């Protein structure tokens, strides 16, 4: 149970199929296609529906527009793919309240472990890479339940609802377990994620928030 290597991937198709390429991604089940995320240079983005799959990342970026009333699920989800210099869409992310192909979808984001773990891996969100605080307005401004990032584990099945609620992500106070037990061998863990912005949200100019995987090995 030495330190496992971990790889983050996303499915950039509308086809809900597993990542059979493991660490390398590529063509997966059901004509899905998995792209390995460069953890240093790539970014997950929740954007307005004006953004188009394949837009150059040097061009205009269309942020989510705060709704006049109620809550708004970010219409589209992308990965800013640094090596390809494009915004690559993640069509199955989110729910049917968004404006892409999300819903009761299982194979959206994957984290592949190439070995066992000593505990159940968790997914968290923090203000920055120091993981000291989770008070950013996007993470609820100190109230974890108000985090705009909501995720659901899909390792062992789809969410069960096309409008799944998800768990707000904010530090260790509110996170998700990516499986039901510690990993005894190499495995792909899956999750879906969305951003929901309330009408009361204060516009933000910038943020360093990070999605974080926490796990145990020995």
């Amino acid at each position: 149970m030495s330190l496992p290597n971990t790889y983050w991937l996303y499915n950039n198709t509308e086809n809900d199929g597993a990542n059979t390429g493991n660490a390398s991604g590529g063509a997966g089940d059901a004509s899905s296609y998995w792209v390995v995320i460069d953890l240093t240079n790539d970014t997950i983005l929740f954007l307005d529906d004006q953004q188009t799959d394949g837009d150059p990342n040097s061009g205009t970026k269309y942020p989510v527009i705060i709704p006049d009333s109620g809550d708004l699920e970010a219409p589209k989800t992308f990965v800013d793919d640094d090596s390809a210099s494009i915004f690559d869409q993640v069509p199955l992310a989110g729910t049917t309240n968004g404006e892409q192909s999300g819903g009761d979808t299982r194979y959206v984001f994957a984290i592949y472990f190439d070995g066992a773990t000593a505990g159940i891996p968790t997914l968290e969100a923090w203000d920055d890479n120091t993981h000291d605080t989770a008070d950013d307005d996007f993470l609820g401004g100190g109230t974890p339940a108000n985090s705009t990032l909501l995720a659901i584990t899909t390792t062992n099945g789809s969410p069960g609802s096309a409008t799944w609620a998800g768990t707000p992500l904010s530090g260790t106070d509110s996170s998700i377990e990516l499986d039901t037990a510690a990993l005894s061998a190499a495995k792909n863990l899956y999750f879906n994620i969305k951003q929901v912005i309330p009408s009361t949200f204060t516009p933000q100019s910038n943020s360093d928030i990070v999605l974080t995987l926490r796990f145990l090995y020995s």
Partner: protein
Amino acid sequence: MSWRIRVTFMGKLSPKTYITPDIRHKNPGWADEIFNRTIESIEFFLPTGHKLVMSGMEQYNFFVEASQSIKGTGCVKIKAFWFCGKLPGKDIVEMWRVGDGKVIRDRKPWGHEWGGGPTRGWKAGSSGKPVAMIRK
């Protein structure tokens, strides 16, 4: 000896003790064959000159808490080292977390010791008078 674990085993078989390499830089090897003998005590040597000592536990576990972030360095960061001992005859785990410049002692229910869930890698100990302390 800083950042090393010394394990003392029960019985007279050699080696009686095993010392890990610096666990900040090397895999601790807790899953290796050497740790499969019944454990009498565990010591962890802190850089302050103190050592964390556990003995008399029914079972022992050790693991490294690590993290990795998108938009981070891409590397896995070690957040903490955990030393756990299951109290003899009780469903309680004595836990020590060494990380962020602090040593924190805690107790958790057996099977719910980390993040509310169970952990893997428990090794047999020799139940006796449980000791969990830090000393020079």
